């Protein structure tokens, strides 16, 4: 058993593939149950618009195979190698480092973006029942690493999120955004964040449309708009300047059938549609209308990525923190094997003692039973004396989070297999 991460991200898979791999919160327990049934002892599923990653405590096979199979089923046209064509696997220390880099924003499309920290937390909480002690500790520390990187380095400085990129793009269409109107589809965190960014620029949030009204009402009240249902929002596409879409719908909600005729009534006035949802909310065909400017997450993240250039100088400092914390975790993780290793060592030594004692007693056949008992006691005491100091030192090292190195040395010196 070891720590593994298997998945896809924005570097390895295009948006349309990532859309298919994305798991809603309600799908997480089922997906993890399936992987754990294949032999994993713990699992956390991190699914964002940029990545779908299974963090597992498992042997290589067949748990990893279960993940590829699970993801492969979501592809409509599967390449020769299945889902693994788009993915990657990191093991043990590399897996720990990977999660730390993810949570600190080093692995994000927008370098240093902070939203991933919340997404890591949500993934951990959604998978709590199946995570197990090792992954609990791993995710807990990952959040700590993310915080450290953001407070001790400048990796998070400036605004380089998809939401702020949306504001920049809208600004390139309308110039000054003050007084422009925007309608919001969806009432999740991303929708709220992006709506707040627009509102900060003086954009009037006129409507917040959502499947459930309560959350929409809360955002609408905060930003000065009106909460409506999705169906009520379509006619407003004729008048709004900006449409911000970030629903959790599994398919496009802004379709040609719903808004095509309405958009025709705009008489050439530009409409900026920011589609922050994965899967996308807006039918790409809408962009064919002349004065409709449609941008999805990939587009906005490309814009935001340009703002991250100055964050690059902070990468070495952030990587140092990640490496430092990876050492600490790995030492702790190594310490977990101390008890079984000590038991194993004692058993091996005792077996050797018993064999050698038997051989010695065969040669000392003249000894009385009392003398034989005395010799046996001597061998036992000697073994205990020999093992006392290494046992104490190993336990102390494990408590201090330095057990892994000593265990490795012990296993090599005594030819022991690593614990399962």
């Amino acid at each position: 058993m070891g720590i593994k991460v298997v998945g896809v991200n924005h570097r390895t898979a295009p948006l349309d593939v990532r859309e298919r791999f994305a798991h809603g919160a309600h799908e997480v327990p089922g997906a993890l149950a399936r992987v754990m049934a294949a032999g994993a002892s713990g699992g956390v599923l991190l699914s964002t618009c940029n990545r779908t990653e299974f963090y597992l405590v498992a042997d290589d096979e067949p748990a990893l195979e279960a993940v590829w199979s699970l993801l492969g089923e979501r592809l409509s046209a599967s390449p020769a190698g299945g889902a693994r064509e788009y993915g990657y696997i990191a093991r043990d220390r590399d897996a720990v480092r990977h999660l730390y880099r993810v949570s600190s924003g080093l692995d994000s499309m927008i370098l240093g973006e902070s939203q991933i920290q919340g997404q890591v937390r949500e993934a951990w909480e959604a998978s709590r029942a199946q995570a197990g002690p090792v992954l609990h500790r791993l995710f807990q520390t990952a959040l700590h690493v993310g915080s450290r990187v953001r407070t001790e380095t400048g990796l998070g400085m400036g605004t380089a999120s998809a939401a702020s990129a949306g504001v920049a793009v809208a600004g390139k269409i309308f110039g000054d955004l003050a007084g422009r109107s925007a309608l919001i589809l969806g009432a999740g965190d991303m929708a709220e964040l992006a709506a707040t960014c627009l509102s900060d620029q003086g954009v009037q949030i006129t409507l917040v449309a959502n499947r459930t009204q309560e959350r929409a009402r809360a955002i609408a009240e905060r930003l000065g708009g009106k909460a409506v249902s999705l169906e009520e929002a379509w006619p407003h596409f004729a008048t709004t300047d900006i449409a911000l879409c970030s629903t959790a719908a599994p398919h496009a909600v802004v379709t040609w059938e719903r808004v095509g005729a309405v958009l025709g009534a705009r008489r050439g006035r530009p409409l900026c549609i920011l589609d922050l949802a994965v899967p996308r909310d807006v039918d790409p065909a809408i962009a064919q209308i002349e004065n409709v400017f449609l941008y999805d997450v990939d587009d906005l993240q490309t814009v935001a990525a340009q703002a991250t250039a100055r964050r690059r100088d902070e990468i070495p400092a952030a990587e140092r923190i990640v490496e430092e914390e990876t050492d600490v975790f790995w030492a702790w993780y190594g310490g977990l094997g101390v008890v079984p290793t000590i038991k194993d060592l004692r058993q091996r030594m005792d077996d050797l003692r018993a064999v050698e004692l038997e051989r010695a007693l065969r040669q000392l056949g003249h000894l009385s039973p009392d003398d034989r008992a005395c010799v046996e006691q001597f061998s036992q005491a000697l073994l205990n004396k020999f093992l006392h100091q290494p046992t104490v030192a190993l336990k102390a090292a494990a408590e201090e989070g330095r057990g892994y190195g000593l265990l490795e040395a012990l296993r090599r010196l005594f030819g022991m297999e690593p614990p399962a």
Partner: protein
Amino acid sequence: MIVTLHLVALAFYGLATAFVLAPFMGGRAAPRVLTIALPCAGAAFHVVAISQLTPVGLGPALSMLAFCLVLLQLASERLLRGSAVSFFAAPLATGLVGLALLSGLAPGAEAAARNVWFVLHVALSALGLALMALAFIAAALYLLQFRELKARRFGQVFQLFPPLERLDRLNRFALVLGFPALTLGVVLALGYGAQFSGGLHAAKAQLVWGIFTWVVLGWAVWVRVVRHWAGRRAALASIAGFGAVLLVYVALKLTQPGAERFL
């Protein structure tokens, strides 16, 4: 002296052009103060040169057109808060000064040139044409930025060009001011001809092509102001207007080689 002053102005305009185009050639964007100061310095020498010039013939006309263009470029820079207009205006003004020098510039004190009507005719015509050129530049910038935004490309054009709305406003402003200026320039020429030259001395081809240009430019203004065209359609209309000016210039050059009275 006039030629020397033009050469100095040309050097400043050329330097400004090199600085504004540097980002498109892999260089770093020049400090904004340089992209403003260099055309200003060039314009200072240029205005002194123009004050000594007889506004008759192609060379002086091109020189005045270039000067008006530089002034509008500087005004637009302030309006747009960026150097995007310079991407087109700076090389155009530099080229026009170069052409003016090649066409020949000489001092003179012809009676006609000192007549207020005539000076106003040349000045307004040059200003009108410069405004039309500015409208064309704003329209071209608009179409380029529009294409980049539609294609979701976020490179140099996206970064350096102004927002669509601002370019649209600049295009409208330049068209709406430029057309009356040009029209007034033509009317002054007619008035001057009738008053001081005993009638209009223009070839039939010049009249026909001139009216054609005026109609096309007028149509571009009409669709903006009366039909409320905006955005891409309006940009295409003003490009058609400026295209008509260039077409007429080429047509006259071909049909009447050596004609000096294009403006």
